[in-house]
């Protein structure tokens, strides 16, 4: 990887209250501009905690995080303006229409007037939702909701987009559409940090992945290189299972 990292994580540690074990143990990581970076791991590995800290939802217990040269402890508002977040849950207001939801979230990013209006219409059109824009979200199918959920995170054209399992529970068509769209915005320079349990999806989409387990990064690299380095495994899923084991996680 060349150039300065857009995200620098150094010795990041996070303890939750009443937990003796840290959720993240002294993790250091660089993510570079225009990467699609996959954060993979079984349940409880620490990936959601890592992303939550990067988005400013939790304060780190120890360590530093710099995003686009801004320190997360001191420049959170500036950081929030350049990141987009697509949570795993459908973070939308069900009784509002797609248009109303997106207008509200756009306003929260400081967008307004024709700039916002045009952007919403463009996104709705691209995502095939322009005809249902004035319908309440609770009348949408799961795939449609996922698409609106995604639009809400990238309305303001963020430099960095965080996606937490964006393709969970949707049909193949919607999934392919979302992945294609992510590739397309990545080509325009958006850095994408993505978590998923779908190894095949991550292998195809991500430029680099980190496999986390029990708060540590246990593998880091390009998916193809990771597979190549371990010739006994044919794909990322096999490596993942080899590294994290087959025992069930809580």
């Amino acid at each position, binding site marked *: 990887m060349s150039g300065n990292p857009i995200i620098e994580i150094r010795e990041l540690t996070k303890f939750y209250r009443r937990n003796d074990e840290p959720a993240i143990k002294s993790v250091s990581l660089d993510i570079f501009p225009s990467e699609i970076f996959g954060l993979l791991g079984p349940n409880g590995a620490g990936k959601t905690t890592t992303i939550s800290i990067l988005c400013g939802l939790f304060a780190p217990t120890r360590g530093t995080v710099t995003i686009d040269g801004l320190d997360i402890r001191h420049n959170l508002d500036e950081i929030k*303006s350049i990141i987009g977040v697509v949570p795993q849950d459908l973070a939308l207001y069900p*009784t509002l229409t797609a248009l109303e939801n997106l207008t509200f979230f756009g306003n929260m*990013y400081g967008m307004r007037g024709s700039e916002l209006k045009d952007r919403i219409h463009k996104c709705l059109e691209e995502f095939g939702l322009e005809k249902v824009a004035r319908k309440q979200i609770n009348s949408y199918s799961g795939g449609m909701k996922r698409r609106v959920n995604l639009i809400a995170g990238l309305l303001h054209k963020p430099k960095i987009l965080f996606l937490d399992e964006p393709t969970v529970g949707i049909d193949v068509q919607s999934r392919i559409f979302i992945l294609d769209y992510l590739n397309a915005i990545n080509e325009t320079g958006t850095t994408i940090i993505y978590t998923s349990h779908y190894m095949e999806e991550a292998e195809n989409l991500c430029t680099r992945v980190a496999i986390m387990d029990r708060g540590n990064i246990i593998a880091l690299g390009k998916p193809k290189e990771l597979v190549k380095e371990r010739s006994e495994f044919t794909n990322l899923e096999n490596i993942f299972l080899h590294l994290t084991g087959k025992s069930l996680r809580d």
Partner: protein
Amino acid sequence: MFKFLSGFRKEARILLRDKAGLTILFVMPMVLIIIMSLLQEFGYSAVSRETTLKVLFLDKDQDTLGIQIGKGLRKSNFFEVIDSLNGKPLTEKGIREAVKKGDYLIGIVIPEKVTRSIRANVRLQVAKTLAGFGLYNPMLISTIPMGDADTVTVYFDPTVKKTFKNSILSAIKEYNYKVETEMVFRTFNQEMAKVFPNFTPPKQEYKDMVVFKEIFPSYKEKEEIPDSAQHNVPAWSVFAMFFIIIPFTSSMMIEREEGSLLRLQCMPVSFMKLLMSKVCVYLIVCFVQTTLMMLTGMYLLPLFHAVPLALGHQILALVVVTIVIALAALGFGLMVGTIATTHQQAASFGAVSIIIMAALGGLFVPMYLMTDTMKFVAGLSPLNWALTGYYDIFLRGSGLVEVFPSIFKLLLFFIISIAISFFYRTLKNPLNK
């Protein structure tokens, strides 16, 4: 500012689209006002009401005391005196059984010859007094033994409250004292006439020396007697306003549980600004709700033959107090919604805490009936400050200056609640602003 306005629009839209929720928010408090006012109006108040409370009355005396008590009960407009059951004259056993079964709340038995006994005792007392002046009547003193006190028996249903019981007993005692006093004067005059043949007793032997006038002092020049609507409507308006914390915290918890809060926390917007937009929407709801409750008191209550609410002349004070009560309620809701971790926790804690604060605040039991300790505790309830503010306006005709203590306390409560919510959030995540 436009982020705040956008939050306000979003919140208002969500609320307006919840038709069932709106019905509950606006119609239920109106129903509450009507029911509670009618219960109070026709259940306890003696004002402008037909005789409703049936009292079994057995007068075995058939003389002055029995007649006076019976007459007094009938004249009070509060009791319907019943002296026979199923066409048969009452008996003491019958009264006891009827009250025991709960068919009647009160039964009064005036014992046989009680007036005769009082009269004899009075004559003896008078004779003893006259003997002190050398007007000794040996026959009177030697032939009349000093009798024991007679017993008027009053049967009460166990559900009758102590205060009500005391007022009944006080009324009976009052009739008794009056009868005794009249007898003292009469006997005294009779004995004096025997000793001094030229003595002519006055035509009116006894008359009340003191009469009682009820005055409700207020800041208004014109004296007005507060009616039950002026007691009930403000009290239940305060209760309903504080109960708004249930839908308010519910809206906060839904936002948290459905994930939109998480998204908002990742956006460059002050969380408190968003919460304030929510507070503003619910402030309007509170205001509309209270206005509807006042209008219910003014125009709907009279349709049920209840006294209509008179708003009075302190409209500005009324508006300001309503706004600060709503702010206090919403501040409390904000605090509960911030600290609670689940929807159920917020809803149950919110509801129970409001009922406790209402009980402590004098909404269910008037403060003057509380012990000193409880009065002190009641003074700590925001619902008490709210109620005091309204009562000052409705019952005492107070203006803004006079209700300032209530306004100040409620505003302070709002500010403290907001501060606690803010610090709690910062404590949970030092990155929060």
